[in-house]
């Protein structure tokens, strides 16, 4: 109420000035009468204004006068808040086409009964906060979601819990929205029963921050999404990719963790993406990657950690991209650089404990690899400048053979292969001569301070 009074005072003051102007113009009139009339006029306007601008809070719950959310939405006006008391709500599909805020108290449960999409949002300025969504319907032809947003702006999806939803959060044709602090988890075995956790299609200016996604098809899915930010998310145990990124330019993903996903993270057909400070961990399998980059250009990949992946980074058709300060640890292949890549630079990366540091399928070298740390480097540093005296060849001969005949990996670590690798080091024949690090570091590069 105090704010109400304050604004009233302000308006009264303002009206006094207006009254002065008013009275000057109408000198002929009886001033006193005029003043009174003016005052009443402004007062009625003011009171009218009050009823519009001061939004109501509508309480919904089993013990309240309004029992269902649908009824609450029907009587709500734009700007109102719906406070949902804890309980279980089974109301089928709820369509929201007003700018309202929905806040749950102690996570009220929205049950889709394995049949329905739960919230369908089609208005600007909607906030959904503190709700729990369970058991949406499953369909192969339509995208049923716990929260679906269509053609909207300024939507906030905050602090919600999603359990066993087909799509968790599904946005299309929307912009300027925030998805923060949500927890999504599904537990089905077959991939046709599950869709993406956070799904974005044709959106721009979206922030996805601090969510946890587990057990979906793709954790986060981006298709035609531009100028967006993905930060501090934790994507684990999804059936396909932890993050899936297609035709989405000028985006940035930072400080996310992708663990144990079916095939890792895929970023494809995109330009100008920043991938900074992420952790790619334990993505094992025949077609699994820590990070799969395909047809990417003018991008930046730095301060990331690749730990225990079949392939740390697989690059195909990548150009003009910088790879700085990344840690490659205990991967099968740290970097798989296909011959279709050009103008990329690798500097200040650390390669430790990988089976193959770099593998390639061609002899032409169009990329720069310089100033990295390689644990397989055996040279000396006689002038003690911290840089090895002879260049390092990161492509082992056996990596070339395995690239051509994949089953040959069976013989890896046999004595014969050891001999062949030694011979190759003395007289290079199969490995690309020019693919070398001219100034290999003697000690690992410290993680850059940019990683926070």
């Amino acid at each position: 109420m105090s704010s109400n009074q304050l604004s009233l005072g302000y308006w009264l003051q303002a009206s006094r000035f207006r009254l002065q102007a008013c009275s000057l113009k109408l000198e002929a009139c009886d001033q006193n009468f005029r003043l009174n009339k003016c005052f009443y006029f402004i007062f009625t306007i003011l009171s009218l204004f009050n009823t519009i601008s001061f939004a109501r809070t509508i309480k919904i719950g089993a013990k309240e006068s309004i029992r269902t959310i649908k009824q609450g939405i029907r009587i709500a006006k734009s700007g109102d808040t719906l406070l949902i008391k804890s309980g279980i709500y089974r109301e089928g599909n709820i369509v929201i086409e007003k700018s309202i805020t929905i806040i749950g108290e102690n996570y009220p449960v929205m049950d889709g009964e394995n049949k329905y999409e739960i919230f369908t949002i089609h208005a600007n300025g909607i906030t959904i906060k503190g709700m729990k969504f369970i058991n949406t319907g499953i369909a192969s032809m339509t995208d049923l979601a716990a929260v679906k947003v269509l053609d909207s702006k300024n939507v906030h999806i905050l602090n919600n819990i999603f359990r066993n939803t087909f799509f968790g959060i599904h946005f299309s044709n929307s912009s300027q929205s925030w998805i923060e602090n949500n927890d999504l988890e599904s537990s089905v075995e077959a991939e046709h029963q599950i869709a993406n956790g956070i799904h974005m299609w044709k959106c721009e200016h979206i922030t996805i921050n601090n969510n946890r996604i587990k057990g979906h098809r793709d954790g986060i899915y981006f298709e035609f999404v531009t100028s967006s930010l993905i930060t501090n998310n934790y994507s684990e145990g999804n059936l396909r990719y932890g993050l899936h990124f297609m035709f989405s330019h000028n985006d940035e993903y930072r400080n996310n963790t992708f663990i144990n996903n079916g095939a890792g993270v895929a970023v494809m057909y995109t330009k100008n993406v920043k991938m900074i400070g992420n952790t790619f961990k334990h993505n094992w399998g025949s077609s699994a990657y820590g990070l799969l980059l395909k047809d990417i250009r003018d991008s930046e990949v730095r301060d990331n950690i690749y730990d225990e992946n079949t392939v740390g980074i697989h690059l195909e058709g990548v150009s003009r991209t910088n790879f700085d300060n990344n840690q490659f640890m205990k991967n099968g292949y740290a970097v798989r650089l296909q011959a279709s890549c050009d103008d990329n630079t690798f500097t200040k990366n650390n390669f430790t404990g990988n089976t193959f540091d770099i593998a390639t399928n061609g002899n032409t070298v169009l990329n720069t690899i310089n100033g990295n740390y390689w644990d397989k480097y055996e040279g000396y540093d006689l002038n003690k400048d911290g840089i090895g005296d002879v260049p390092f060849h990161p492509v082992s001969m056996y990596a070339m053979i395995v690239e051509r005949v994949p089953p040959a990996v069976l013989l890896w670590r046999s004595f014969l292969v050891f001999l062949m690798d030694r011979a190759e080091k003395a007289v290079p024949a199969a490995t690309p001569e020019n693919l070398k690090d001219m100034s290999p570091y003697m000690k690992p590069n410290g993680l850059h301070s940019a990683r926070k």
Partner: protein
Amino acid sequence: MRTGILFLISFFLWSCSVEPTPLLYGKDACHACKMTLMDKKFGAEVVTSKGKVYKFDDMNCMINFLNSGTVQEENIAYRLVIDFANPEKFIDAKDAHYVKSDKIRSPMASEIAAFSKKEDLDASNKEWKGILLSWGELVAEFK
């Protein structure tokens, strides 16, 4: 002894046969875009006359591969696409009916669905209002 030899011969014959193999959704990766196949309404396969199988997740991946000339036209034994109306079922690419509409969300955004029966296509296309295409037109469009 004789059955053993017969068995061996039949084994070799069997292993050399040129047959399409089903797409394993959730396991197989697309030859062109490297994505794991997931959506059972979309998919395609090319089998060469030597029996090598290339799998694809979307029409544009398959057609770009065919147009790239990696495999010669005369060395292709099968060109197969998934019937949108019967997920996971292969049909001959040349006999299929195609429709393109921006309402079709295919894995690689080709926006093309394939159907074995014209009735199925018409039923789905009521909502999509897409344009109908034949195989020849499709291949030409991606050239």
